[in-house]
């Protein structure tokens, strides 16, 4: 495994060395390490890049690491990873992607992850994206996440993009059966000329299902972000989406929510707030002895914590 891969792994999944449990480490489009366990089987796909991750029913408390790293310029990586989570399993999946460029050519990683949760399964899905390197080549990460949750299942997704990713289009689709829950917390910071586009679409198909989409973002420099969310309430269900953004310098953020209630008992809410840091917040921290710059940094650190 390359040094840069090791550095990226530390950044995206807090991994230093091979993890305990099941894992698959992807490096420049190839496999740099794989391990299954008694409960979690990882097998390569036939005919297209990617892996199938089979989590047996009733698996409790195991972690699955599936980080992907791009270590140099001029890489165009595409991967399909499918997760089949058995009934009443309860696992944590740590994904994440790091892209390093040292030259003029761009590099990109397109990760297409599909989750099929059986009845009563619970998944915590953690995903962190980062770009590093001195190269002028663009670092591009386009994750796609498809989630189907059967009765009584739940998935919590924590997705973070902190810095260095020049362009990203993040597509997430969800389909929820009765009594299932989906919680997505997204945190994005963009700077320079970066662009980030988030596109959520969730279908609430079963009575008692619920979704909560929470996005917090900061757009600095001349960066540009778009937040799109569509929630379809097709039954007695609850849906909530929230876009909370701080803009700085010449940053631009658009929030485009769409709620469709196809059933009289669907309760759907959207909240959006976009603006610069409130002057009184900076003033308050300055009265505690922070400089204006320190106050701004503290406010953003808290906001994206």
């Amino acid at each position: 495994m390359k040094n840069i891969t090791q550095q990226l792994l530390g950044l995206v999944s807090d991994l230093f060395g091979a993890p305990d449990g099941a894992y698959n480490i992807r490096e420049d489009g190839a496999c740099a390490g794989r391990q299954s366990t008694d409960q979690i089987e990882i097998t390569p796909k036939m005919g297209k890049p990617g892996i199938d991750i089979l989590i047996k029913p009733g698996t409790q408390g195991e972690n699955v690491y599936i980080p992907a790293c791009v270590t140099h310029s001029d890489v165009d990586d595409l991967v399909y990873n499918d997760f089949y989570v058995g009934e009443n399993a309860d696992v944590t999946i740590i994904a994440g992607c790091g892209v390093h460029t040292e030259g003029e050519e761009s590099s990109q990683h397109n990760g297409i992850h599909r989750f099929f949760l059986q009845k009563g399964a619970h998944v915590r899905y953690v995903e962190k994206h980062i770009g590093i390197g001195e190269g002028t080549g663009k670092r591009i990460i386009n994750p796609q996440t498809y989630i189907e949750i059967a009765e009584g299942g739940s998935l919590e997704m924590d997705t973070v993009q902190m810095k260095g990713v020049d362009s990203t289009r993040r597509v997430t689709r969800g389909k929820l059966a009765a009594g299932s829950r989906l919680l997505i917390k997204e945190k994005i910071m963009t700077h320079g000329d970066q662009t980030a586009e988030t596109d959520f679409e969730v279908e609430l198909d079963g009575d008692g299902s619920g979704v909560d989409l929470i996005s917090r973002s900061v757009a600095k420099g001349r960066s540009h972000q778009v937040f799109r969310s569509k929630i379809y309430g097709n039954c007695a269900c609850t849906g909530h989406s929230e876009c909370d953004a701080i803009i700085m310098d010449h940053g631009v953020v658009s929030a485009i929510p769409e709620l469709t209630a196809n059933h009289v008992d669907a309760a759907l809410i959207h909240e959006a707030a976009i603006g610069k840091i409130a002057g009184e917040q900076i003033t308050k921290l300055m009265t505690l002895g922070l400089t204006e710059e320190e106050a701004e940094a503290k406010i953003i650190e808290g906001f994206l914590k």
Partner: protein
Amino acid sequence: MLELKHISVDVAGEDGEKGILKNVNLTVDDGKFVVITGPNGGGKSTLAKVVAGINPPTEGQIFFDGQDITGLGITERAKLGISFAFQQPVRFKGITVRDMVELAAGEKIEEEQLCGYLRDVGLCAKDYIDREINASLSGGEIKRIEIAMVMARKTRLTIFDEPEAGIDLWSFNNLIDVFQRMRREIRGSIVIISHQERILGIADEIVVLSGGVITAHGPRDEILPTLLGDDKCQFCPKLEEA
């Protein structure tokens, strides 16, 4: 020692410049507990903000321990030892009570000490340490956290802008204890803007600010009876006429 010399603050109004503070001269000696009172709109909060560096004066000078701080910003004054508890505390998404008290103290502090500050302002510490200072806190809760923050700073001058606002009567006695303890433990000066008789009752000195000018300033025993002696509001000429 804090000295305000010929402080005026003008703001642009519909009818031209309007004086919020008019040639205010005030000295707060070391270790004194001074309460500034007076009618709403009299310039009290503006005066506090002038000292903290939030509102620059149009004219005049401010000295802190003999140093002219008129040209200094908020941060520099805070570092010199001036604390300011806002009348309407500010909310922050994602920043916790612990974060803020530690920022105020300027260092990491032990949980026991942190709990002590919160207990002093009547909050059950364990429930609050990791709470965000966001919209989920009530007006009274955030107000007490604001007071805990300035207590943690332990500076030579602490200014409170209407600390009683939003605090229920039940907790109010506690607040009086807090101020009394502060004056014992911190050998600094305390300036409180307040309308509360109980707070006026523990002052060394009382300043009455009305219409942007100091209309009275002296020891508590001298000033307080003149404020409480009449059923009619002495600041309201219309009532006097009625």
